[in-house]
């Protein structure tokens, strides 16, 4: 079972890398130019605008729900019982 889950993770990682590599090899130009990214660069668009609050939110949920992982906060577990 452990091997299955890691195989799955590695497969997804490999697929993502392959997509990225083929994306680079194809003659597709980046379609959103740097000077068109001012909206995305606006501070209000930052998902990690308040990192200390996000870490607390992730901890609150991880201690009370069974789901864990892929939060995007780079956590390493609840660290509690």
């Amino acid at each position: 079972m452990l091997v299955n889950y890691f195989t799955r993770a590695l497969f997804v990682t490999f697929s993502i890398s392959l997509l990225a590599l083929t994306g680079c090899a194809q003659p597709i130009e980046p379609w959103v130019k740097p000077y068109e990214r001012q909206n995305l660069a606006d501070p209000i668009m930052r998902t990690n605008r308040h990192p200390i609050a996000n870490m607390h939110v992730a901890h609150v949920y991880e201690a009370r729900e069974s789901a864990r992982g892929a939060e995007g906060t780079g956590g390493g577990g609840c660290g509690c019982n």
Partner: protein
Amino acid sequence: MAVTNKANYAKFRQSFLCLLICSLFSLSLQAAVLEEDRADVLYHSYDGGGMKIDGPAILLRKKASESIAVSAYYYVDTISSASVDVMSTASPYSEERQEGQLGIEYLHDKTIMALSVRQSDEDDYLAKSVNFNVSHDTFGDLTNLSLGFAFSDNEVRRNGDDLFEEQNQQYRLRAGISQILTKNLSIALNVESVADEGYLNNPYRTVRYIDSSVPSGVGYQSEIYPNTRNSFSTKLSASYYLPYRAALFLHYRHFSDSWQIDASDIELSYRHPFGKTVELELKVRYYQQTQASFYSDLFSHQNAQNFLARDKELSDFDDLTLGLGVTYLIPKQFSISDWRSEASLQWDYITFNYNNFRDPTAEGALGEEPLYGFSAHVIRAFFSVYF
């Protein structure tokens, strides 16, 4: 002729300035950069289901050079618990958990490597972990790829029993891709596999079973969990910039594990600035999960199966979060040394509804007590300084 030349010169100057601004802007976006130096001080509070947890937290980030940044995080939980699990078989307790984290980030061209170590310590649990992440900007910086690994070594003890000491280890492997799709929309896909092995029980919790040999008709025995648990999570996120300068975020995560728990959560949040000093944030999140294969609220007899659990966290339940946050961007004249600073207050209201976990402290025949549910208030008040 002179007028035409003057007009051409003005046009040229305008174009040149425009190009210069665009170039400068594109430079700042093209090259990966380390996040800005900041310090955050937070007070957090959780109150619900008979549990009160609060304490401070501090986060510091400082660039040592253009390519190296260091960070430190310190967090305290002061816990006072009289939850339904505790009240049905034990007495209320209080304890403190302290967590510390040190990190270093190294930027090389368009790649950021981050290494952090963490320790979480409470009377009956010691967790030590190391975390490594690499992220790389590619495809004209429209795409960011990331990979990460974490290892945690944990020591489980039981208060009042000096001879009890167990271990468990956790391995995490994660990958992610974020992609700018349009000038207003970016999406991200993150996956993470987590594998645990060792003693995964809560050493205090028990299961209940029908026992006709005692007057109450109910007996208790310790929980028995499997010694391994493997899980896989996939999260899809989208961030959208609205035309009137506001932001919309959507997250969906699916989770499954080897204990047969399937879970998913969906979150929608909206951030809206008012003028130059106030930002309002609204959030709604829904979570639901199925039960673990070895969970039961009431077993038919003692040792009914090889694995036994009655943790409400392993039952079939859902929860709903409504959140409200306000950030005040403090005007420069009131800031220390002209540093940009902000004060924020966030409040979450969470309601938990359990579908097969009953409240044994309530009135009702054995196994027919009302289903349990509770609500919690979560508050975060914090102050951030960018220096």
